[in-house]
């Protein structure tokens, strides 16, 4: 009997281990210094550092011609696919706004599917596309957020819902689309909704129970440090935006998460004089408590929708001959920032795109020096504005190769005729922007964006491939000698990372707005990307592409055809 018990205990332990993602495994994900575990992709960003880089090189310049699809699985979803899949022990986990799906990596067959049922009018409070960016894995569970502002846990083996916690009331303008982050045992999420005048927040939850452990509003309340940067004669801070809608990075050694915050609300700035902390900022926070250890504001009193939510990439860079632990961001405002991530000290801030609202960043104060263009916008005049409110780069994530020290990004080259309108009283759950934003005539042949390799400290381009048809809304993946990204017209492409030359492409069934991953399975390198036009595309290119690119989400997985 005792022997039976012992055997059972061992079996249970083994089963538990096979389905558990420990904190150590999460920390090791994508870390080149540890024993490289390339079978798994456990974190959004392919590592807590968000480098979206893998040293895997079976698929390389010479072999790429043999890269072929090995399976495709429909995701039964027409809203669009923006997620990065995760992989653990031969099982892939994929999310979109409707479903969470577990897939056998070896066969491409669906293991389980969990479906959400949010109210049909929820998209009313989603400014920029019904989407979901991915899951988090921890301790045998799959965690995700929902459009109608819930966070939930599923059993990774069965897809059974274990808990579901209401984060906020969606009718008040809050939605959730980001992939959660597990840092130091805490499940961390941030909200969307600045376009509806919500007060942004970052939350910590107990992954075991779904109980909220802390909430850090990105706008301090009256009496809290930072609130003095808001008018004291109105309540603009209560409806001041500052969403936190892209997953942050995490330095486990420093035990700091790095989270970007969104634009203030409304976009028109007349009613919110002051710097408006902590909007359009970077927050370095303790994952256990939500304490803000340091902050840096990229765009004080942001009048331009210059979210600072984009990926905050962690790396070690040589600065003036000395290695520094840095955090980097290609900010929406057109500047590429490098900061010391131990203390928030600004190391570098150089323009990487055409910028006319500021001349430069003052390295002593860390503040942008605004031009007459900025003055004109604040005076509510229609003004030619670069980069446009969509930014020098939008959310399509950059990759970083620690061997070349370069960032690889899909950037935007767009100015617009931008005007602040008179603001009107806040109405709960309704848009809170008050701007006009019209296109500028574009010279023939002028690119609308670039795929480029950028030096983080100088913002110099090592190479730059102009785009003339549609901007790229898919993230970049650096893998060995190659870069993978995808187009709205459906092509999944691979470029030579040294030159930008396109080496390979495959036409998927819909458009690509998602994040590729690469990993190994039984010793063979795989690449996976989701295809499924949607997201911001609905706002921008739907009319232009509706007869060319059908909707319909699916997972495409590629490997090398044996020689």
């Amino acid at each position, binding site marked *: 009997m005792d022997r039976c018990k012992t055997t059972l205990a061992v079996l249970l332990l083994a089963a538990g281990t096979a389905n558990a993602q420990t904190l150590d495994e999460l920390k090791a994900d994508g870390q080149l210094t540890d024993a490289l575990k390339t079978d798994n992709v456990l974190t959004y960003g392919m590592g807590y550092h968000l480098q979206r880089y893998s040293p895997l090189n079976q698929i390389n310049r010479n072999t790429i011609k043999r890269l072929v699809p090995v399976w495709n699985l429909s995701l039964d979803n027409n809203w669009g696919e923006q997620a990065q899949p995760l992989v653990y022990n031969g099982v892939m986990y994929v999310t979109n706004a409707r479903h969470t799906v577990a897939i056998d990596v070896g066969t491409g067959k669906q293991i389980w599917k969990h479906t959400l049922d949010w109210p*049909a*009018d929820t998209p*009313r409070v989603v400014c920029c596309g019904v989407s979901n960016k991915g899951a988090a894995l921890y301790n045998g569970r799959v965690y995700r957020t929902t459009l109608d502002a819930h966070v939930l846990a599923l059993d990774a083996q069965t897809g059974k819902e274990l808990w579901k916690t209401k984060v906020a009331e969606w009718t008040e303008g809050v939605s959730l689309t980001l992939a959660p982050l597990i840092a130091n045992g805490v499940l961390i999420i941030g909200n969307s909704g600045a*376009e509806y005048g919500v007060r942004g927040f970052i939350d910590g939850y107990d992954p075991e129970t779904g109980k909220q452990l802390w909430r850090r509003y990105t706008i301090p309340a009256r009496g809290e440090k930072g609130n003095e940067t808001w008018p004291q004669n109105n309540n603009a801070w209560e409806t001041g935006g500052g969403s936190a809608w892209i997953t942050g990075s995490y330095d486990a050694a420093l035990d700091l998460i790095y989270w970007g915050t969104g634009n203030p609300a409304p976009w028109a700035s007349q009613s919110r004089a002051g710097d408006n902390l902590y909007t359009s900022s970077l927050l370095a926070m303790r994952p256990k408590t939500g304490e803000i250890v340091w902050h840096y504001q990229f765009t004080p009193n942001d009048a331009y929708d210059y979210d600072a939510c984009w990926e905050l990439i962690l790396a070690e860079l040589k600065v003036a001959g000395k290695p520094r632990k840095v955090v980097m961001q290609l900010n929406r405002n057109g500047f590429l920032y490098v900061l010391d991530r131990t203390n928030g000290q600004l190391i570098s801030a150089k323009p990487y795109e055409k910028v006319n609202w500021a001349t430069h960043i003052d390295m002593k104060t860390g503040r942008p020096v605004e031009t007459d263009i900025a003055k004109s916008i604040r005076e509510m005049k229609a003004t030619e504005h670069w980069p446009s409110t969509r930014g020098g780069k939008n959310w399509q994530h950059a990759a970083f190769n620690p061997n070349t020290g370069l960032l690889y990004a899909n950037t935007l080259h767009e100015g617009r005729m931008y005007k602040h*309108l008179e603001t009107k009283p806040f109405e709960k*759950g309704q848009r809170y922007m008050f701007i*006009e934003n*019209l296109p500028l005539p574009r010279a023939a042949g002028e690119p609308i964006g670039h795929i480029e390799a950028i030096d983080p400290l100088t913002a110099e381009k090592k190479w730059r491939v102009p785009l003339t048809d549609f901007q790229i809304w898919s993230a970049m993946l650096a893998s060995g000698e190659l870069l993978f990204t995808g187009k709205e017209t459906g092509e999944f492409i691979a470029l030579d990372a040294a030159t930008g030359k396109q080496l390979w492409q495959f036409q998927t069934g819909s458009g690509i707005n998602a994040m590729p991953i690469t990993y190994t399975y039984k010793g063979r390198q795989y690449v996976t990307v989701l295809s499924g036009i949607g997201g911001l595309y609905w*706002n921008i290119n*739907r009319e232009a592409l509706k007869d060319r690119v059908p909707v319909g989400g699916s997972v495409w997985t590629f490997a090398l055809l044996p020689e």
Partner: protein
Amino acid sequence: MLAWSSALAQAPTPQQIQRGADIYERNCSPCHGARMQDPQGAFDLRKFPHGERERFITSVARGKNQMPAWGGMLKREDIEALWAYVVSDESVHGH
């Protein structure tokens, strides 16, 4: 019913058009474009047939294609004001 029919027959008032303009500016312009210009990915409302009032009201209330349903937030008279604005000269030429 009689009252409803006679309301239909009446031309929209300037107040109704202004109410529609305010709703449009706040909730519709982010996708359909400022003053219906630059609709980008959304339906170009400048092309909406002026004879199809009920279709407009139903589409806004219940949602259509990628447009969410607004009936939970906007009352019938709000959507009628929106219609008054969309078919007025004010919408494209500014207000």
